[in-house]
């Protein structure tokens, strides 16, 4: 990027000086841009076409129309939500497309707020976000913090080092004595911890859990030999194997008794109803299937929306 400015009479000196000067100029430009970025909100994702029922929904929920809602995401899950490697100013993935489709259907725009996984629901509760569409499993526990509208079944993959040296076969006693990397707040954590009595009765030590705060850190833990396995959504695991085919593999896939859900505030039943209706319309129009195909997710993931709320 700096080769154009080399002065041939004195090339070396200039070559040494200009890159820095240019970088600073960029920096200053960036600082200048900062305010504009601040004002205009965060990265927007690409839009989609809209099903027919949406017009009626927009008429029914006019309060959402023209708004910009904030979607709290933990954008460390390629395939669901992550930066676009080709244009890091955008978020891409299945969840992003789904959220945009719901927004288009109801007439609002989506802004994104990247937070740690454990902070997704806190951010929603504090009002710093309006909605959470971030591959979060709708459990009874989590339903105490937010209402969920489910949209997908959960299939987990067991990520291990190439060759599966610890012979892990799922969330079962094969994990006794091994170390699992997980993200803080993931549903897999209590499931792995629940293996302790079984391990003990088998005379083995229990499984250890290392807690990280994003996907990349969990994958790095296996690559660095700190952890033996990382159990998470199967697509995430597949992406990791694709990135490091020589070092990682998927030992197996397991089904978890959960659904993936969209989190909405507990005190906004009307908004919840609107999102539910929009999701139904999107599923009915076949858009969700297209999105699954687009992101190479299995079609059997799809699940009819149901509410998970706690009282």
């Amino acid at each position, binding site marked *: 990027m700096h080769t154009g400015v080399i002065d041939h009479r004195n090339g070396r000196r200039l070559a040494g000086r200009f890159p820095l000067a240019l970088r600073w100029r960029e920096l200053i430009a960036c600082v200048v841009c900062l305010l504009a970025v601040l004002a205009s909100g965060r990265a927007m994702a690409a839009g989609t076409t809209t099903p027919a029922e949406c017009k009626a929904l927009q008429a029914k929920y006019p309060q959402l129309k023209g708004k910009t809602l904030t979607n*709290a995401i933990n954008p460390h899950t390629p395939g669901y939500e992550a930066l676009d490697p080709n244009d890091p100013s955008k978020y891409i993935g299945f969840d992003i497309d789904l959220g945009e489709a719901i927004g288009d259907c109801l007439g609002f725009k989506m802004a994104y707020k990247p937070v740690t996984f454990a902070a997704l629901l806190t951010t929603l509760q504090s009002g710093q976000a309006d909605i959470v569409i971030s591959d979060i499993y709708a459990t009874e526990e989590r339903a105490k913090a937010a209402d969920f509208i489910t949209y997908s079944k959960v299939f987990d993959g067991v990520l291990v080092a190439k060759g599966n040296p610890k012979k892990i076969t799922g969330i079962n006693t094969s994990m006794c004595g091994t170390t699992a990397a997980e993200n803080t707040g993931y549903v897999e954590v209590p499931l792995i911890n629940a293996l302790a009595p079984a391990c003990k009765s088998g005379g083995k030590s229990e499984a250890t859990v290392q807690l990280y705060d994003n996907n990349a850190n969990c994958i790095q833990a296996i690559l660095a030999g700190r952890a033996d396995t990382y159990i998470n959504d199967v697509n995430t695991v597949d992406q990791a194997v694709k990135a490091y085919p020589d070092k990682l593999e998927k030992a197996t896939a397991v089904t978890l008794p959960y659904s993936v859900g969209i989190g909405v505030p507990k005190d906004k039943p009307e908004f919840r109803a609107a999102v539910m209706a929009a999701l139904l319309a999107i599923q009915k129009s076949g858009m969700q299937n297209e999105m699954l195909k687009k992101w190479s997710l299995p079609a059997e993931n799809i699940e009819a929306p149901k509410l998970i709320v706690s009282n």
Partner: protein
Amino acid sequence: MDLFLHYLSLPYLLSGIGFTMAVTALGLGGGLLVGLVLASMQLSKVGPLAVFARGYTVIFRGTPLILQLVFAYDALPHIGLKLSAIGAAGLALSLNEGPFIAEILRAGVLGVERGQLLAGQALGMTPAVMMRRVIAPQAIRTIVPALGNESVSALKNSSLASVIAVDELTLRSTQLASSTFDFFSIFFASGLMYLLLTGAIALIQLIAEAALDLDRPAGERFAHLLPWRRAKQGEDELAAPARAEGAEGAEGVQAQTQAAQGAMVAHATAKTGTSAAAEADPLASRAPLRLVGTPRPDRAKRYAELAQRPAAVRVTGLHKRYGKQTVLDRFDMTVQTGEVIALLGPSGSGKSTLLRCINHLEQWDAGQIHVGGRRLGYREDGRPMSQRDLANERASVGVGMVFQQFNLFSHLSARENIAGPLRWVHGVNAIEADRRAFELLERVGLAHRADALPRHLSGGQQQRVAIARALAPNPRVLLLDEPTSALDPELVGEVLEVIQRLAVEDGLTMIISTHQLRFADQVADRVVFMSGGNVVEEGPAHELLTHPQHPLTTRFLNVMGADHRLEAAP
């Protein structure tokens, strides 16, 4: 390497630097504000404020920043205060930096020598003037390195704002690493960016330190690094007395040409002449008691004449206790205008306390002090005075004070030590103040050292500057608190000589506490011998010193006289 360079120049990461800088700037700016408030609360003498500040410090210094960030971002909305991510990060970082910066500021303020504050007070500086002109300039110099440190730490701490969705460098790096799996090249790139930012802070710190370095005149900021320049500076200091001789000789000649123009100038000539002689003769300055002139002629006549004059200082029934110990016990003393009083007495006899009361640097428990007919310590409406009132009182009553430890403002040149207070306290314009400062420096034989910092002057020279500073506002009375006690023996003479000239030539009213008996004999009209906060004996100087009546006086004079005989023998 290619990937590393790719990420190093990736606009997405580079623009994250903007957020990092914004959070850091908010945190440091806010922290400075919080720190200023906390430091003033702790330095204030108001108990509850200090306790509150201490409590705040304990909480915000004692909890992790990451918790404070999450609190500001996620908890405050529940009480209706919904800040943007940057706002919440700026707030949390400010609240967290505040106590650290407060301690830095406090250390800077407390690091300023107490003596300089006393001198500032004695010169009539209000607390505000003192803060602005004496404390702040010195404190700022000492806190720059610590502030640089704190800035680097704040910059790095800003990365924690990534947990509350501030779109800064660290958050961008981790997200990018998650989506591209180029973990290491991304973090090396962002690490280098952080390094450049902290490097920039270090550079700013160095520049600030260089710009504030008093030992480097603005024009020679970098020249001083050259070895020959440094050698020359060293020579300057060694050669100071020798140069003084030459310089003063020249000034003498110049002054002589002006002599016809007025008696005032003629005085100056005489003075510089004698001081040059004293400095040129090393023996003269080594022997503290070898003073110019003979004891005042016609003592009896002068004594009678003084008694006719109005009182310059009248102390009646002055009582002062420190805790249970009585320092001044219903003390009475009257000083006539133009009179020179030598206060003698053992340590702890109350000499210094008396002088400090006369300048109202101390509060007393009972009794009255009048200076020039004005009663100290009460406003016209009879209410007690604030610090500010006291300062104004000192400035207007006209009591100058010279301290044992000189107490020059160490960040100011000799000339500024004199001219500064004239401008700040008495509102004299800059040109006039400068002229007055130079004139006084000439009188004490230090015109050639006008631009020297106190630390580059000898003790004797510093004390002469301090005397000039005390004289600058034309005080009614000059108080000298053991002016030569902190000096090396060979430097005593030059100071005593200056004081003597003030007495002889200016007829200045002076109260001098001293242990120099022969000096007292030559200069003082009257000696007041104190012990235990009381006057034991007083009378015409020569009589009292040669024929003391009270056994305590006799014993004291014997001990001191014996010392002096030893000291006087080279």
